[in-house]
């Protein structure tokens, strides 16, 4: 490599190191502020190195109380149910569309593609889900609107099936007497693990991070709140939690660290993503690349 090549290598490392820091430091600030004693938070503000460390926020989360634990369970449940349904429904639609012999294939494919270009917007959707399907204040509010399946995923998966599953294999399975369901389950799916995991990953992240459905459709039943909804509510009204916790006997010794607790909830909402991410990183990158360019 020549000198200018070396120089740009150093420059690239320098710029990327700064950008990487900008991505990590905010998260570190989040973590340290959840570990800061309430007193020094109020005195010095949020800082990377607090004057006084404290585990009070987490101690509070641990002993108190049903609300946070419940929200965490709702997040896990919604993510699990939502992702599983999403992958199933997407596969069941994408696979037939990948079969060239299917009559009406172009019509259905266009119907899927069209949803990416044109939609009715929030007002009709909201009124439909609440007036016609009555999902307001039910668990289904977290699952059904928008997240259950999207046209992008269907198209990406269909493209994967057409380019990666040879028609001969499907034909051979048919000659051997396998029905369509059998072919899909025992021939096509085992060959499609990469795309299945990519779609599952993207859908899982969408469900885990979603707070819009809760914001729109959960009004009275705050017991269905996910951790994101809880955080969303807490930033608007910090007392949403301390009020409910006031009567908890175990906490009588601890002053409720209201700022720290909010940060601690944000941290525990992030932890699963941050733990899983390094292992799933390859799948994510693949998903972004196929979704971004070929979609």
């Amino acid at each position, binding site marked *: 490599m020549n000198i200018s090549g070396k120089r740009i290598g150093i420059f690239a490392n320098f710029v990327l190191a700064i950008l990487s820091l900008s*991505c990590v430091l905010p998260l570190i600030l989040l973590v340290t502020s959840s570990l800061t004693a309430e007193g020094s938070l109020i005195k010095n503000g949020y800082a990377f190195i607090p004057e006084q460390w404290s585990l009070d926020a987490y101690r509070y989360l641990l002993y108190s109380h049903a609300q946070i634990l419940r929200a965490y369970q709702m997040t896990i449940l919604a993510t699990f149910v939502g992702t599983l349904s999403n992958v199933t429904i997407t596969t069941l639609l994408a696979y037939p569309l990948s079969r060239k012999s299917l009559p009406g294939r172009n019509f259905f494919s266009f119907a899927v593609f069209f949803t990416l270009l044109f*939609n009715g917007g*929030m007002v009709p959707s909201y009124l439909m889900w609440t007036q016609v399907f009555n999902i307001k204040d039910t668990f289904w509010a977290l699952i059904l609107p928008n997240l259950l399946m999207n046209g992008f995923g269907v198209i990406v998966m269909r493209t994967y099936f057409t380019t990666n599953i040879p028609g001969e294999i499907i034909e051979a399975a048919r000659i051997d007497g396998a029905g369509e369901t059998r072919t899909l389950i025992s021939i096509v799916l085992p060959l499609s693990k990469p795309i299945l995991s990519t779609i599952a990953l993207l859908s899982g992240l969408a469900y885990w991070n979603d*707070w819009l459905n809760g914001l729109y459709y959960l009004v009275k039943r705050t017991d269905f709140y996910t951790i994101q909804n809880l955080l969303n509510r807490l930033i608007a009204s910090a007392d949403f939690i301390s009020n409910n916790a006031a009567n908890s006997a175990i906490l009588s010794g601890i002053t409720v660290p209201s700022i720290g607790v909010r940060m601690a909830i944000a941290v525990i909402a992030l932890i699963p993503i941050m733990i899983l991410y390094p292992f799933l990183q390859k799948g994510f990158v693949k998903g972004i690349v196929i979704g971004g*360019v070929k979609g």
Partner: protein
Amino acid sequence: MGTVKKERRRQIIKHLPLYIMMIPGLVYMAINNYLPLAGLQLAFKKFKYVLGIWESPWNGLKNFTYLFKTGDAWVIMRNTLGYNLVFILLGTLLAIMVAILLSEVPRKRLQQSYQTVILIPHLISYVIVSYIVYALLGESNGMVNNSIMKALGLSPVAWYTEAKYWPFIITLIHLWKTFGYSSIIYYATIVGIDKSFYEAAVMDGAGVWKQIRYITLPMLKPVIITLTLLAVGRIFYSDFGLFYQVPMNTGLLYNATNTIDTYVYRGLLETNDIGRASAAGFIQSILGFLLVLGTNTAVRMIEKEQALF
């Protein structure tokens, strides 16, 4: 003719199991994506909850005249389009720059780590982003006021009450959250470029800049066009989390943070002004759709292969 019809029917029966498989997806699509299209008529109706979408009386263009009379229309249009144009321009430049720099990092391991780290903001919900932003910009506890402004000898700023700072704050947060995602798309293209082009260029004495200018950028052009096309198609849409959650729905900041999406939300759930909300939503849906068709046609005329459809 008869035999063609018969053959078609035979084919359909043969494929019956496949049609049955498609039912859940098609039903969901019909409900989630197609049924609301009928609700677009609300923009021309005076909606009453007791009467529902179909029975509510027609209202002509009243919702629209009402919307445009208030001046809100101008603000939300300006913000939605303005931010998006800035986002597309700066976002594309930043992403291409990062992608090229990534490809110039000599060590593979390091390249991998940068890729991993710059994607992190993409994984975080805007709710959590709003907590981070609050930790930085909160008036009495925020790190910026407490550490940075103090160190610089400046007096603290009440960030959440001064709209004039927010165009910069919002743009910065948007770039921070999305640059990793889009640079990875560009980077994937750069990695796919045939290495022999570069080798030939080096033989001809081309330096790094010339290689970027004459090989990398031209090879990226199709991706740039595709991504820009997609972004232009979404120019009437804004990320609700960025404009609602991050400024914490603060009224004083509306002038800089109100977009079509936040306006529709507030009309629907906070101020119960469904008429204006549906008029704004109608404009968003229809203009957005026309714009996709328009830009796609334009691209097809200039470079046929790069058109989306």
